[in-house]
């Protein structure tokens, strides 16, 4: 930790402290007294790292919980898996998602995909009798920017983009949630139906052809994830950059 602060302090210009003075002077002159009072009660730490060359770790173990990723699952480097998270085979978690299993378990089932910028969290306890863990079963497509919290998604579903599933909701097999739908806590989306809206309301039942399309979509995205996966080398060569960087700053390796 001290080494990191050394690096960041060396790498940064030394104009930060007079900058703070300028900032406080500017805020007093603007008569924003609350801002200055707030600034007085905040005690920033000199050791806070403003820039870490390591970036954000993908897999964050909490206590004894270690997120598990299957060998052929694609997890984008942007993603944060924290706590009790299991990503099963063939699944994919796309860029910018946050799967935070710190209060309860999160599982992404076989051949499922969690698309970009989703946030999946699990509450401590759920209002319904269902387990409070978030479990996404097999062949589920969770669309981009969705927010899932303590919900159970049974096999072969499609969750539309930007949908919000609250605590204790259950999405049954072969159902589709349209984009932008909000499922209030404790709601159940029955088998084979299409629901939409905020709050989610019944639209129509799905035809048999549409039902067979659902796992095909998951498999198609699985195929796509394989090409993304192959872009990354098994071992990164960034350690060479780190060595160069440290040599520049005169820090011994």
């Amino acid at each position, binding site marked *: 930790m001290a080494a990191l602060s050394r690096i960041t302090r060396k790498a940064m210009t030394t104009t930060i402290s007079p900058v703070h003075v300028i900032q406080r002077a500017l805020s007093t002159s603007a008569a924003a007294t609350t801002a200055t009072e707030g600034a007085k009660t905040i005690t920033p730490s000199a050791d806070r790292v403003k820039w870490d060359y390591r970036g954000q770790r993908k897999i964050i173990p909490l206590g004894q919980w270690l997120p598990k990723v299957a060998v052929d699952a694609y997890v984008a480097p942007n993603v944060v898996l924290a706590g009790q998270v299991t990503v099963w085979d063939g699944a994919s978690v796309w860029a*910018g998602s*946050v799967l935070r299993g710190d209060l309860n378990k999160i599982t992404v089932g076989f051949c499922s995909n969690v698309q970009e910028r989703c946030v999946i969290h699990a509450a401590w306890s759920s209002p319904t009798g269902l387990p409070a863990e978030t479990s996404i079963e097999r062949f589920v497509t969770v669309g981009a920017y969705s927010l899932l919290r303590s919900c159970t998604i049974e096999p072969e579903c499609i969750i539309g983009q930007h949908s919000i599933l609250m605590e204790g909701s259950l999405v049954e097999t072969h159902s589709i949630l349209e984009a932008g739908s909000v499922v209030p806590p404790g709601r159940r989306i029955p088998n084979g139906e299409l629901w939409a809206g905020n709050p989610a309301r019944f639209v129509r039942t799905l035809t048999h052809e549409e039902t067979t399309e659902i796992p095909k979509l998951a498999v198609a995205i699985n195929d796509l994830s394989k090409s993304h996966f192959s872009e990354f080398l098994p071992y990164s060569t960034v350690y060479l950059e780190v060595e160069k960087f440290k040599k520049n700053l005169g820090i011994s390796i």
Partner: protein
Amino acid sequence: MGTLGRAIYTVGFWIRETGQALDRLGCRLQGNYYFHEQLSRHRTLMNIVDKAPVVDKDAFVAPSASIIGHVQVGRGSSIWYGCVLRGDVNSVIVGSGTNIQDNSLVHVAKSNLNGKVLPTTIGNNVTVGHSAVLHGCTVEDEAFVGTGATLLDGVVVEKHGMVAAGSLVRQNTRIPSGEVWGGNPAKFLRKLTDEEISVISQSATNYSNLARVHAAENSKPFDEIEFKKVISKKFAQRDEEYDSMLGVVRETPPEFPLPDDIKDPKVSQK
């Protein structure tokens, strides 16, 4: 080390050099499509010219969050993974004990169509849910902004007010104390019961405790991380399915003890 040790070290070094030369050869073969790995340039706390963020030392800021410009974060607050707090044209003030959950966006505007915009102020002990978008609004103490909510310019959420998940609160709406507003556009839904109000305050406290666990984990230096990996591999619990395939029966593993802070809030209160 002795001569044998030194010899082995040198051989290892040659092998590494060979490997790196092969890597460079592979890069040349890839030609224009070769990818050059670089260090992460993501800056958690970034200042714009002279506006620097001021973050309290007890606040948890996730490394993948971006705190840019004139932002103040108070004591015990937590800014979770992937958040962006952008105080570039105006200021963002986050009180103490507040949590801004994952992938949220707190933004300010310098002026909008109607006139000047106040800085975004988020009070103490506020819970801002995942992926919320707060743009030029004021959220007072102990309020609750639901998951995925969007609060536009000039919105004021009073103390103990609650914005339901997925709602879009239009400009200059005022959400009175103790009420739940939701939908698109946000309308009054119902009043909060006293129990729910206390749950909101409790959730903020729980989140502070959780933040401490995450903060400890995220600020580990490299050596500690590697050490922990080795230890966890050594004491790893075998997968039950794997065991049953082999026909092995192990004694039931002990329950993982949770750190005290994030135990069930009802239990820890007793």
